[in-house]
C-alpha cells in the first residue's frame, strides 16, 4: 500500500510563494514575442485594401475613397497575416494584451484627406 505520495509536494508548496498571480492587482507583462493588437502607420498606408481581402475573419475594412481604415478589435485574431501581406509594411503588432471592453465597437483610423482639386477655369 503506497500512501501519502502527495505529502512531499503539498509540504513543499505550503511554504512557498503561491504560483498564481493576484490579477488584476498584479498585471501580467506579456512575454517578449507575444503578438498583441494590430497597429497601423497611416503615413505610409495607401489604402489598397489587400489586408482587408486577406483577413481571415473580415475584421478590417478599407474605404479607399474616404481614406478610412477600420478594424473590429473583437474579430481580430492577432494572426499577423495582414502585417505580412501589406505592400508598404504599414501594419505591425504591438505585443500588448487586449483590454477588456463592454461594447462591440470598431476602431476607425482616418487618413489625411487630400484637398479637392481646383475646378477647371
Amino acid at each position, binding site marked *: *500500500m*503506497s*500512501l501519502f*505520495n*502527495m505529502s*512531499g*509536494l*503539498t509540504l513543499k*508548496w505550503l511554504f512557498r510563494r503561491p*504560483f498564481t498571480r493576484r490579477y488584476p492587482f498584479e498585471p501580467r507583462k*506579456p*512575454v*517578449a*514575442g*507575444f*503578438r498583441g493588437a494590430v497597429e497601423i502607420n497611416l503615413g505610409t498606408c495607401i489604402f489598397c485594401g489587400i489586408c482587408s481581402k*486577406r483577413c*481571415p475573419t473580415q475584421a478590417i475594412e478599407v474605404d479607399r475613397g474616404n481614406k478610412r481604415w477600420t478594424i473590429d478589435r473583437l474579430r481580430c*485574431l*492577432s*494572426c*499577423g*497575416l495582414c502585417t*505580412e501581406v501589406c505592400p508598404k509594411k504599414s501594419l505591425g*503588432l504591438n505585443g500588448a494584451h487586449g483590454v477588456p471592453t463592454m461594447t462591440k465597437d470598431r476602431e476607425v483610423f482616418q487618413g489625411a484627406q487630400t484637398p479637392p482639386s481646383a475646378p477647371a477655369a
Partner: protein
Amino acid sequence: MAERTIIPFGPQHPVLPEPIHLDLVVEDEKVVEAIPSIGFIHRGLEALVEKRDFQDCVFVAERICGICSFIHGQAYCQGIEEIMGIAVPPRARYLRTIWGELSRIHSHLLWLGLMADSLGFESLFMHSWRVRERVLDVIEATTGGRVIFGSCKVGGVRRDIDAEAMKTLLERVAEVERETREITRVFINDSTVKHRLCGVGALSREDAYLLGCVGPTLRASGVAQDMRKLGYAAFNELSFEPITRSEGDCYARVAVRCDEIFQSADLIRQAAAKIPAGELAVKVTGNPNGEFFTRVEQPRGEVIYYIKGNGAKNLQRFRVRTPTFANIPALVKTLQGCDLADVPVLVLTIDPCISCTER
C-alpha cells in the same frame, strides 16, 4: 427483474471539458448500455474551407481544437504541400517537430489534470496545470500565442527560434520534466489512484484494434501503432519507439501518457541538437490540384485529413477524422457493464476532445 432507468450524462457535467451527451441505461448501479449523441459544438468548419483562399485556411484548421491546435495546422499544411509537391526546408521541419512535441507535452499535462479531477483529486489537478503553465510560457515566447500558435503556414513556418531562445527552451523543458516526475509519481504509485484506475474499462487487444481505436487508447492495449513512425516532419531522423502497455485498462492509459511526456521531452532535446540552419519557408505559387490523405499523430491519436483541390483558389473538400471520433466506439463498448461512479473516469480516459470530433 431489476428496474432500468435512463440517466442523461452531459452535455453539462463538471468533469467534461467539452459537451457530449450520453444516455446511460442503468440497472441499479450498473450501466447496461450507453448511447452517445454529439453535435453541440458543430461549427461546419469543413464547409468554411470552400469559401476562403487555401492559404488562409491554415487559421481555420488550427482553430478546430484548442488543445491540439498546432498539429491540426501542421497536418493541413502537410496535406497541401504533398499535393503541390512543395519541399519544406529542413529547418522548418525540425521547428514543426519541436512545436508539435511541446504541444503534446501540454496536452498530456492538461489531460492528467482532468483525470485527477475526475477521480476527485483536485490538488493533483491543480499541480498538473501549474506545470503546464511553464510549457505554455515557453510556447508563448517562441510562437507568440499560448494556445493557438499561428506559426505554421503552407511552405514552412512563420517564426524562428534562434540559438539563444533554443537554449532557454531546453532549460525550461528540463524544469518541466523534473516537476512532471513529482506528479507522475503520484499517478503511478499512489494506492488511492490505483484503486480507482486498475481493472476499470479493460479493452482487449483484439477489440481495440477492430473498434478502430487510435493513439494511447490503442497503445495501452498492446498494439504498437504510432503515426510518427511514418516519418513526416523530422521524425524519420529522430529515434524513438512507440510506448505500449498490455493491460488495456485506465491505469495503463495513464501510464502510457505519463511516459509519452518524457518521450516528447527527449525528442525535443534530440531535435534541438540536430536542427540545421537554413531558411524558414519556401514561396508557394499556384493552386492545389489533386487529393491526399495526411495522417499525423496528435496527442490523442491518429488524425487523418483528406484534402482535395481542383486547381481553384478554394479547396473542393476538406475532411478531418479526428482521434476522438475513432475512440468513441471504444468508449461505448467499455461503458457496458461498468459502475455508474466509473462513468466520468471512463469518459475521460479516451481523452475526449469533442470540439475536434464535431469540427
